[in-house]
């Protein structure tokens, strides 16, 4: 009798321990879905990098990118740049959602977006523009 109780308690402890360890270690980001979004963003970055450098496009507080200075983009290219920004923001939204889902916590999407928003800005190159805490544009 005691052994049944003991066994079930041990099993319980093992299961709970494993769950907590998984929650505290790393977030799961190695899924095919996340890799695909990451690849798409990496390919797009070649086109976005000069726009960050010129100040045409900046990093927003909420983990997106936005057209900061339309005048920095020749009129003929403006539609293309807007398309790039829209595609990038779509990928970023999918990325945040997929990471939350891959970790079985869809409700973390907003927190993940905020974390990324901060890290994109922290790691941006000198000269790139970002939104500061008040929402105003600043230059690194």
């Amino acid at each position, binding site marked *: 009798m005691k052994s049944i109780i003991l066994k079930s308690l041990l099993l319980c402890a093992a299961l709970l321990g494993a769950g907590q360890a998984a929650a505290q270690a790393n977030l799961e980001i190695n899924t095919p879905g996340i890799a695909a979004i990451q690849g798409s963003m*990496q390919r797009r970055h070649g086109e976005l990098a000069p726009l960050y450098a010129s100040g045409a496009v900046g990093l927003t507080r909420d983990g997106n990118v936005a057209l900061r200075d339309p005048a920095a983009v020749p009129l003929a290219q403006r539609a293309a740049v807007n398309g790039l920004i829209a595609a990038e923001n779509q990928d970023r939204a999918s990325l945040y959602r997929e990471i939350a889902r891959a970790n079985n916590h869809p409700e973390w999407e907003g927190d993940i977006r905020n974390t990324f928003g901060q*890290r994109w800005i922290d790691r941006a190159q000198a000269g790139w523009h970002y939104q500061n805490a008040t929402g105003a544009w600043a230059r690194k």
Partner: protein
Amino acid sequence: MKLQTNTNRRVAISALLGGAALCAIGAGCVTINIYFPAAAAEKAADRIIDEVWQLKGGVPTPPATGAKPDAK
């Protein structure tokens, strides 16, 4: 004798039920109380940013504010 067996069975069932209840309560606590792992999320964000911006071996980047440096 029969009474004894019945009692034994009843005790066994209640022990199993008790174990199951403890499990359920424990699992419930974990699910409800789980906090957003901010440090792990920062690490995950940095790994993805490294890839997307191709930062590995490139320009040194400032460490995360508030996150503990982790030895690799």
